[in-house]
């Protein structure tokens, strides 16, 4: 029996595989938290006002006492700053609807921008304010698209994948620039005082790229640089990959991460669930975040989410026990909790309630 811990103590113990009073839990609630702010804050306001955005994370902590806080906005931040057109509807996650690569020459026009401006600058300022509010209360992990995702968002994934195969040299030159942008960003984000940096390396997915392709276009050089920049800044290294077939060996074993957040797709045969990931030894090396289906928050009841969380805690406990681990596990959602107006905020509470009841650690 472990004495009650503060959320922050729980996060640190989790990362160090030490006994915890209960498992850490952090559903990836991001834009949803705008609904905790006074008045009516639209998604667009939340995504463009660093004060509002930061305050929503602080309100999320106040309500749910999250051990971890992952400051994800959306996946169009870096592409927007590279010149892609981003559509910002009033109540929808912003997304790229105008790419910047129209012919091969366009790859050479990509230049790493000043990351203190634009939406990356907004993200940096938001992280400063979140840390001001949550220092020593919650373990704050910043979130940013990795070099290849930044480029695919800017170029269009289909176009990029074809160009990677038919004419890779300009793609590599563009990746040099997106990597520089990511490294510049982590240097600035670190100044905010965050304790970890989580990269979205989405394309490390066997549905999309094999080992050879992933190594060439992200793993061996570009992610290596961003991972090193993260370490150089004294930050914990995290990866989020909500793909159905993530490159676990590369992204966990080779990259040497501290935190790995993954999704589970029960309908995809090869998608690894939490039990398998732990039993295969990946939690020996890092803390695994996962993996309640994000759609449950939208479409299921409090009771259903509560029961799913209870089952996840029990399955993880068995799997961790088999590996002789204390924790290295955080109940999470595998991907962002839908920020929709119709999403049930009480279902986040259901996760936390179930973890309080059934998440007593080893």
């Amino acid at each position, binding site marked *: 029996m472990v004495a009650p811990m503060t959320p922050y103590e729980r996060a640190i113990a989790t990362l160090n595989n030490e006994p915890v009073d209960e498992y850490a839990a952090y559903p990836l609630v991001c834009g949803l938290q705008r609904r905790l702010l006074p008045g009516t804050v639209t998604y667009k306001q939340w995504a463009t006002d660093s004060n509002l955005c930061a305050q929503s994370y602080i309100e999320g902590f106040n309500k749910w006492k999250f051990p971890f806080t992952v400051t994800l906005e959306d996946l169009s931040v870096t592409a927007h700053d590279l010149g892609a057109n981003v*559509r910002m*509807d009033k*109540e*929808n*996650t912003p*997304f*790229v*609807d105008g790419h910047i690569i129209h012919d091969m020459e366009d790859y050479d026009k990509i230049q790493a921008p000043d990351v203190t401006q634009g939406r990356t600058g907004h993200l940096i300022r938001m992280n400063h304010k979140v840390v001001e509010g949550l220092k020593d209360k919650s373990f704050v992990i910043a979130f940013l698209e990795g070099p290849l995702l930044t480029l695919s968002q800017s170029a269009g*994934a*289909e176009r990029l*994948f*074809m160009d*990677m*195969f*038919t004419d890779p040299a300009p793609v590599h030159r563009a990746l040099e620039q997106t990597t520089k942008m990511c490294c510049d960003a982590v240097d600035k984000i670190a100044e905010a005082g965050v304790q970890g940096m989580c990269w979205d390396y989405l394309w490390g997915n*066997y*549905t*999309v*790229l*094999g080992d050879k*392709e992933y190594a060439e276009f992200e793993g061996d050089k570009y992610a290596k640089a961003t991972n090193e920049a993260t370490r150089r800044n004294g930050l914990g290294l995290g990866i989020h990959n*909500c793909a*159905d077939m993530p490159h676990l060996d590369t992204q966990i074993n080779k990259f040497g991460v501290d935190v790995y957040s993954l999704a589970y*797709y029960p*309908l*995809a045969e090869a998608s690894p669930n939490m039990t398998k990931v732990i039993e295969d030894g990946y939690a020996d090396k890092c803390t695994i975040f996962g993996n309640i289906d*994000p*759609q449950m928050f*939208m*479409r299921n009841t409090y009771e259903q989410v509560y029961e799913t969380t209870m089952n996840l805690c029990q399955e993880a406990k068995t799997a961790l026990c088999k590996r002789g681990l204390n924790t290295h596990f955080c109940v999470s959602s595998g991907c962002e909790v*839908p*920020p*929709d107006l119709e*999403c049930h905020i009480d279902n986040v509470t259901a996760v936390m309630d179930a973890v309080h009841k059934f998440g007593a650690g080893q």
Partner: protein
Amino acid sequence: MSKEEIFEELANAVINCKADLSKAAAEKVLAEGINPVDAINEGLVKGMNVIGDKYAAHQIYLPQVLVAAHAMYAGLDLLLPAIPKEDLADAKKAATAVVEGDVHDIGKNIVKTMLTAGGYIVNDLGKDVAPSKIAETVKGEGIDILCLSTLMTPTMDNMKNTIDLLKEQGTRGNCTVTIGGPPTSPSFAEEIGADHRDNNAQDCVNWLKGQ
């Protein structure tokens, strides 16, 4: 050069991801007066099926599939217009679309490719397509199969809105509706009144062929 050799050229052009060779072989088909339907089925589709099998076996990955599909379309663009209308009378018509509010179309494009390789006549409506436009197309063109896709949660309701419009205009019964995309599930398909939800394009086409 025999008909079979030209078909082999078409298949190999797709397998080797060579759009220029696919186009050149398709030109030979037309110059020799060979039935374009035979050339599509025995050449381009055969090649695309090899690609599909290799992808399923993780011998190749998405970039190669996309480039192979590009090669297939280079040949198809020449051969499809050459098919006599009466030969297409029995072919099923399909429409593909990413629903309004979403522009992520890579999955939809793979479905389009696999449907084409499966012998369907595909009208790709593109991305960010309004339910009313989809419904109008289904009605106006007598679409037999409608494949809807979205990657994002907030736009899932536009799948339901589309199906509701099909019901309103009385075309739902004549049209099989499939959906796809990471946030969707079989239970969501059932909830909104779709016929099917699948994980990948090839399985979806196989399901459709079994109907």
